[in-house]
């Protein structure tokens, strides 16, 4: 058995078409036999037979077009989704780097949001308190830290979110398109922090549409297309092939 922190073996994921349900009870009941039949048969397949491992300290980039299954893959790694077939094994503390503002509340101050977000992401209150000073300093928000989040700019919210995530001491970090927000300087700071994670031996899954960032930060890249691993290899190679395909379309 491999001891890699992230192991996907033969993972498939299909979703039932929930619109029969969310279309309402009335619709569902009035077309009951039909609804039940379609519920069983009409499933949407997001991933099929995906297998890969990420070694400790390795950064794996994931590229692919919209709807290729990248977010499903991260959801499976985070443990919020269950695979339909195959198995997903992720060991250690997992920290997802959240999209802008997720898990924050607009009416709470920066400090209160740090506590809220830190605990949601898996720290105890005592652990957040220990890290509080470092998080505040890293965020560079100054006096704004005592202001409610609704007066923050998008860039400031992103900075706060990244600051919390950066201080979780995760074993596995899941990063989904976060570098798309924030100014250039903030992006540079994020990349710097991610390099620091790499030095510390944190294992990372990095989903991005930004090919320069992928080349810069990843040790290996897999390209997801048509629900499967289409290509896997060195960042430069995969990015070249992927970009070539994109240009050809």
């Amino acid at each position, binding site marked *: 058995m491999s001891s890699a922190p992230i192991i996907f073996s033969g993972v498939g994921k299909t979703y*039932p078409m929930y619109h029969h*349900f969310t279309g*309402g009870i009335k619709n569902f009941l009035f077309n009951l036999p039909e609804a039940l039949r379609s519920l069983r048969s009409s499933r949407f397949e997001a991933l099929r037979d995906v297998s890969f491992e990420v070694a400790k300290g390795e950064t794996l980039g994931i590229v692919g077009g919209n709807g290729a299954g990248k977010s499903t893959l991260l959801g499976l790694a*985070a443990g919020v989704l269950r695979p339909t077939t195959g198995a997903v094994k992720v060991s250690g503390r997992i920290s*997802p780097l*959240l999209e802008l503002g*997720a898990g924050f509340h607009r009416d709470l101050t920066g400090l*209160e949001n740090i506590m809220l977000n830190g*605990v949601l*992401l898996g720290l105890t209150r005592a652990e957040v308190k220990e890290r509080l000073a470092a998080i505040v300093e890293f965020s560079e928000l100054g006096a704004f830290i005592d202001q409610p989040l609704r007066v923050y700019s998008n860039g400031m919210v992103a900075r706060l979110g990244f600051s919390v995530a950066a201080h979780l001491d995760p074993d596995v970090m899941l990063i989904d398109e976060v570098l798309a927000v924030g100014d250039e300087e903030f992006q540079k700071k994020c990349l710097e922090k991610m390099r620091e994670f790499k030095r510390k031996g944190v294992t990372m899954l990095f989903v991005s549409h930004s090919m320069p960032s992928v080349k810069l930060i990843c040790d290996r890249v897999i390209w997801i297309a048509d629900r499967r691993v289409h290509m896997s290899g060195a960042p430069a190679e995969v990015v070249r092939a992927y970009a070539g395909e994109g240009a050809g379309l």
Partner: protein
Amino acid sequence: MRYFIDLTTVLTQKELKVRYKNSFFGYLWSIAHPLAFAAVFFVAFKVIMRVQMEDYVLFLIAGLFPWQWFSNSAGISPHIFLGNASIIKKVNFERSAGVLAAVLNETIHFAVSIPVIVFFVYYYGRGAHASWLYGIPLLMLVQFMLTCGLALAVASVNLFFRDLERIAVITVSMLFYFTPVIYSLDMVPPQYRALVNLNPLAPLMASWRSLFMYGTLDAGLVALSAVYAAAALAGGYLVYRKLVWKFAEVL
């Protein structure tokens, strides 16, 4: 376990802070609603319809405050998971803490409104009862369990059947009139009295009122409430457990 307590605490604090942050009168709002209803029912039933009942205002208040606790919790429960979609889709935290925090928040509001009930007890020339010392915590625990169970089920199922939210609103307002809050159990015609206690809220609300007004608890009613509460909690938790891993799929 330590972490689950922290998670629940932080989420409860969030709810409390958010509720009071932008509200000038804060606490007063949580008692204004049941008091306003007490006034309306007093005018409708005592002044206009001349219901023969002594201390009808106190009678109403002793039932409306606990009812408010229940109906507020029921009202927010469809939104508990729905409103946290972005974080549920990304982070695998224990989702039931959100339900616990929401119900705890309403419980705190009820707890701080108890002095208002006590004020009316004294205003109508009655005194405090020693039985309150165990009776109030006991009934609070029973109602907390009942509410948590229902909220867990409603919050979970509403993600799959979004219509449930509308159904819940109608059910709660209908349930109110089938619960002895504005009338007493004795006023129900004998042939229907057994039916009233099929409503899980009925024995509980009757117990609250007799506790506040007379300092007495009917062991049978309390036991029946406790059975309903235990069943609701077990059922709600089962529903939640069965559905929780699909939350991220439907949100």
